[in-house]
């Protein structure tokens, strides 16, 4: 199966700082739903940034879709949901405008939108169940709906890899559960590769195929059922 993300003996340290990641090996296959978890400061966000080509490793190689991660040509193949605090949820934007902004990279900066673009945007909005709120200002939506609007933005580019960075930070447990179930359905329906990065992974534990725990390096990589009991997310208890 084709590899979406490939890290080989990757080490990373910020200039003048201690090593954050040491000789990390990680392969994520196309179509997998994987959570990258670990304590704050454990290096999971750094691992994500290296995997996406936003940071250059000190040693080792990072590849995306088989190409060097920092030189991937068609980056629109990546759909990205940033941490809530970094999103423009206070902007006076409508849901439609937010989702449309996720299509720009695939279409190209200067090319006008065509029918295929408009269809993809409408489909992304419908996929998250916000078709009746396409004209609604994003500020007037609930936190969960805002999150769905930005998921639709990531989907509008028809990505092959969907990356979510701490998507449930600051969201209550019930909303996290609903979001986890939604991602499970999305993965089933689209077959897209999902990389879910969070220190709170309990909401998606039932849906992911692999849990990767990062603490300076990878300390666990396997199916959730094999995760040692003391590493489970205590904020979510599933029967």
């Amino acid at each position: 199966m084709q590899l979406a993300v490939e890290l080989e003996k990757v080490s990373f340290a910020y200039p003048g700082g201690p090593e954050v990641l040491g000789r990390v090996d990680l392969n994520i296959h196309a179509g997998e739903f994987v959570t990258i978890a670990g304590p704050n400061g454990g290096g999971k966000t750094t691992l994500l940034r290296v995997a996406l080509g936003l940071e250059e490793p000190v040693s080792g190689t990072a590849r995306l879709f088989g190409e060097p991660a920092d030189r991937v040509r068609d980056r629109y193949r990546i759909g990205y949901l940033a941490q809530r605090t970094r999103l423009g949820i206070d902007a006076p934007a409508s849901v439609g405008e937010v989702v449309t902004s996720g299509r720009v990279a695939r279409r190209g900066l200067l090319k006008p939108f065509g029918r295929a673009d408009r269809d993809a945007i409408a489909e992304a909005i419908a996929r998250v169940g916000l078709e009746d709120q396409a004209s609604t200002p994003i500020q007037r939506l609930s936190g969960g709906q805002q999150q769905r609007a930005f998921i639709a933005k990531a989907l509008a580019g028809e990505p092959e890899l969907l990356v979510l960075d701490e998507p449930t930070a600051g969201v209550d447990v019930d909303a996290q559960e609903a979001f986890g179930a939604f991602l499970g359905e999305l993965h089933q329906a689209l077959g897209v590769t999902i990389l879910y990065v969070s220190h709170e992974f309990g909401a998606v534990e039932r849906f992911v195929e692999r849990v990767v725990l990062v603490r300076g390096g990878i300390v666990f990589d396997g199916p959730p059922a094999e995760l040692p009991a003391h590493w489970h997310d205590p904020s979510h208890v599933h029967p």
Partner: protein
Amino acid sequence: MFILDADFMQIAFATGAVVGVLAPAVGFFLVQRQMSLIGDGIGHAAFAGVAAGYLLDVSPVGAALVAATLAAVGVEWLRSRHRAAGDQALALVFYTGIAAGVVLVSAAGALNANLFSFLFGSILTVTWSDFTLVAILGAVGLGIIALLYRGLVAVALDEEGARVSGLPIGLLNVVLAALAGITIAVSMRIVGILLIAALMVLPVIAAGRVGTSIRSTILLSMGIGLLSVTAGLTISYYGNLAPGGAIVLLAAGFAVAAVAGAPFLNRTR
């Protein structure tokens, strides 16, 4: 005498109309990216440009255009390369600009009324050739915004996401910074260097409380900017007041009214 009978008022209204729509259009993207104060920093660099223009005996507006654009791109470079935090980069340009301006003004012996017209705006000193330059630069600025609109919106809403998906963030940020520099330079004759940043921010604050989309907010902010400039010029003409102050006080009034009235408006929607 009717206000438009005076040739200088025709020039002031024509120039002011360009400034009134351009400044909020550029300002919208600065406000969304929490860079509202960049206009102040660039304005001080423009002051150094005006002073350099006097010293070198070249067009003060042209020299200010170069200084403001270089300063804006410099702030963006410092910020994006993490050489300095955003507010530190701004402080560096802010203080360097005002200090260089003071030194150059004293060297040129130009501490006179004409210099004050750049600082506080003047409707008497604007010429048709100034208007031609303002109109050309204004059209270029609005044209660039229209051309890059979707990309600028994508960065305003989610810079990290736009970067990951491959949009040329560096280019878009430099273009936005350069647009801010151009706006400052073309606006200073009417509004004044010390107050132009307000016209980039206050109409956007007002429109942001009322608008229901980015498009409607930008158009509304341009309308508020235009109204503030034309009404401010009229008041300054009949009241013999500095136009920059009158324009900005009106824009501030719109912003205060929108902030105060927004909760009532939202309740009725």
